[in-house]
């Protein structure tokens, strides 16, 4: 009856490596949020404060 602990150990290793993989996945939602924040500042779409002001086209004419 040596195979059962062996199988568990393998499962454990697989679980841990899966967790590591998940941690390396690209956080798409967080990246989108970060991009929005930077774009709002660069294009000055929102004046300070978090009220979601309507995106105003930048001073064209």
């Amino acid at each position: 009856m040596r195979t059962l602990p062996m199988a568990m150990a393998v499962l454990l290793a697989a679980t841990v490596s899966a967790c590591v993989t998940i941690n390396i996945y690209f956080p798409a939602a967080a990246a989108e949020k970060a991009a929005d924040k930077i774009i709002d500042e660069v294009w000055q779409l929102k004046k300070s404060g978090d009220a979601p002001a309507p995106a105003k086209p930048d001073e064209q004419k």
Partner: protein
Amino acid sequence: MYSQILRLWMAVLLLWMPLLAFAAADLEINTPAIGSLKTTMQQRHDQLAGHYASGAVGLTRNGLVAVRDATLVPLAQRQAVNGLVAAENQDRQALYREIARANGHPEWEDEIRATFAQRWVQKAASGWWYQNQSGVWVRK
């Protein structure tokens, strides 16, 4: 033996939970390098905005900008616009690289660039030009 390993396995799973939560948290974008890139891009935008609106400059599908139709710019200004576009692209590349680096994953650069490419277009004013997925210029 069996239950011991099972318990150890559960413990390892629990220990990893905070790390998983951390992975879902915000990206770090408050570094001096990112801050100064934002500032120069913000200042440059005052000069570029008019060219986005005229259609001379458009947003590319890879998160950069490009001269789309130089004839929309008076001859005397064309050189300046080329310079603006080149400088903007340099800053954008650096921005994507810096965000990836600041978060300890330089290999994320391309995905960050792709995310930005979508968001720039999403937030562009109507009338501005952008490249769709096939690289064709489209007016928003």
